[in-house]
């Protein structure tokens, strides 16, 4: 009862003190709110950017999980293949993973020499099952000329815009693929360009081609064999658990199971650097916020030496004085925090709906985002709560020194203070 009474009266004094010097409290609150809003914006924007990058990698290249022969990705070689891919796919669906798996597709991958009548270039050939691939990849949406691949063994090929330019070929032109089959023999096939795609990612547009799965299997000397099985999950959050589950169920087959993080380590590194950057900015903003609060609370304490002395004379204890000052800082942070969160949420709402086109500022942005250079912010509770928690923590920490200073005042000295 006593504690509740004490906190009640201390809170009352603290709140009224916050509004006592309205201009000072407004300026400090505005600085805190602005700092918080910036951090919420940065978190939302960064999360959105990262999510788009991940989505780009997952939906254009890797899927969430890939199953392959051991060390296939270290050296892509037709001699490394999965013998009975359909049984593995059956296993995936029978392992109670169906609710978590959105789609599964097979790919054949090999390096090849691609020649037109004028030029030739090295490229990564990806054999896909057009219908299944549509469930996993957004490749079809990137076609800027012509159409998507047809099923079965059609002698057609999708080629990147940049590669087409390098080979001086266009829609309907014929090009020849030459590669080494799994048994060491040379496999070759003439294919007609059915579509030209532009992903916005230079590496893909310059050096990747897509052909029907059956065609790729024949060139590589396969029957039903494939290079990789690509799994797309319903949600990215399932990645770790499904990875563990697949590793367990497929461990006896000697296959390698890799996540997109293993397959695109540079992307993981970029995301990590982005996060570190956010923490650095967070640190700078909070240092500024902390100095603002420290200044405000110190001034507030210095101005009220005599008043604090009177309260102590009446019988308030040191720790109650400390609590009073901390509560003052807490309420200041609560007001500023509410405003900052409202502004930050407004910013996230707007940018998640309309996005921000970065292409005018950075020509290289497509390297990370693909063809869609508009970045959309992403709302996460973490993105709001962590900065908010930081604001409250910093407010309390910054107010500790003035609070302890107030509590250590000698009453006699304060009463002489005018």
């Amino acid at each position, binding site marked *: *009862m*006593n504690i509740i*009474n*004490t906190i*009640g*009266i201390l809170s*009352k*004094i603290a709140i*009224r*003190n916050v509004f*006592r010097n309205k201009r000072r409290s407004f300026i400090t609150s505005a600085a805190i709110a602005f700092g918080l809003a910036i951090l919420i914006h940065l978190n939302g924007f960064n999360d959105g950017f990262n999510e788009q990058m991940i989505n780009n990698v997952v939906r254009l290249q890797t899927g969430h999980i890939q199953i392959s022969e051991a060390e296939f990705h270290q050296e892509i070689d037709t001699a490394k293949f999965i013998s009975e891919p359909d049984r593995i796919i059956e296993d995936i669906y029978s392992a109670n993973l169906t609710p978590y798996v959105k789609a599964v597709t097979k790919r054949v991958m090999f390096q090849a020499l691609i020649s037109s009548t004028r030029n030739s270039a090295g490229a990564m050939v990806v054999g896909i099952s057009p219908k299944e691939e549509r469930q996993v990849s957004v490749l079809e949406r990137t076609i800027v000329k012509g159409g998507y691949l047809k099923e079965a063994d059609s002698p057609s090929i999708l080629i990147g815009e940049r590669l087409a330019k390098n080979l001086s070929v266009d829609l309907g032109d014929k090009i020849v693929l030459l590669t080494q089959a799994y048994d060491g023999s040379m496999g070759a096939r003439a294919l007609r360009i059915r579509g030209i795609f532009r992903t916005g990612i230079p590496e893909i547009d310059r050096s990747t081609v897509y052909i029907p799965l059956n065609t790729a299997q024949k060139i590589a000397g396969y029957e039903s064999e494939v290079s990789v099985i690509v799994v797309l999950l319903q949600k990215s959050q399932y990645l770790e658990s499904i990875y563990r589950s697949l590793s367990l169920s497929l461990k006896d087959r000697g296959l390698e199971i890799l996540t997109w993080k293993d397959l695109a380590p540079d992307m993981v590194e970029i995301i990590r650097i982005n996060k570190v950057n956010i923490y650095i900015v967070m640190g700078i903003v909070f240092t500024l916020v902390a100095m603002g609060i420290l200044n405000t609370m110190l001034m507030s304490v210095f101005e009220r030496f*005599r*008043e604090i002395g*009177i*309260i*102590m*004379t*009446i*019988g*308030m*204890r*040191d720790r*109650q004085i400390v609590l009073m000052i901390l509560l003052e800082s807490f309420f200041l942070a609560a007001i500023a925090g509410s405003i900052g969160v409202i502004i930050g949420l407004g910013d996230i709402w707007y940018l998640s709906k309309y996005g921000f086109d970065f292409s005018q500022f950075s020509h290289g942005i497509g390297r990370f985002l693909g063809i869609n250079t508009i970045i959309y912010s992403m709302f996460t509770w973490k993105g709001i709560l962590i900065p908010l928690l930081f604001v409250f923590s910093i407010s309390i920490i910054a107010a500790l020194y003035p609070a302890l200073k107030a509590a250590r005042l000698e*009453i*006699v000295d304060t*009463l002489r203070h005018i």
Partner: protein
Amino acid sequence: MAIVRLDKVSKVYGKNKLKVHAVTDVSFEVQEGEFLAIVGPSGSGKTTLLNLIGGIDRPSKGKVYIEDQDITLLSKARRSDLRLKRIGFIFQEYNLIPVLTAVENIELGLLLLGIDKAERRERVNKIIKDVGILELANRRPKEMSGGQQQRVAVARAMVTKPAVILADEPTANLDSNTGISILRLMQEMNHRENITFIFSTHDPMVMEMASRVIILRDGRIESEEKRD
């Protein structure tokens, strides 16, 4: 039992050549219900003496007892408790908390004591009637005159039912009529509630109303006289 007892109390401020002997070898007792005035010119040590009795300063030498308890040995926290429970303060400058209303200023000590809401309300209602500030209950200090603020300060000092109230020149900032009314109020409370009052003053009118007067000069008791 003496409510207050000072035993050869001295207080020295500063060090070496800058030493100031504010109070030297002062001893006296104050009995329950006394209305004691400590008088003397500026710098005679009146405020220092009240600070020592109130436990907001420690003597350099000697002992101060409140209800037979040696307060010079108490920790800072224990002295805070003692002031909260057994000592009331009235200041020359009123010293109300500016962000609290009259009622909230009066109630502050009761809240710190952990007294329940019903009793707090009863005590506050009684005291604001007794000191004649019923209509000022919800005003903040800046909305009151000096005399009104001092009445609130008297109510604040009394509401916790302390053993002794220390008043440091309570009428010095008031005009003579208001000063007299405040003194009469304190005297009335002294008679009615039997609360011991010790106040410092150099106002002759205040001395007239005291039951005993201690005259200080240069930090020493020069004389003492009892009034009827």
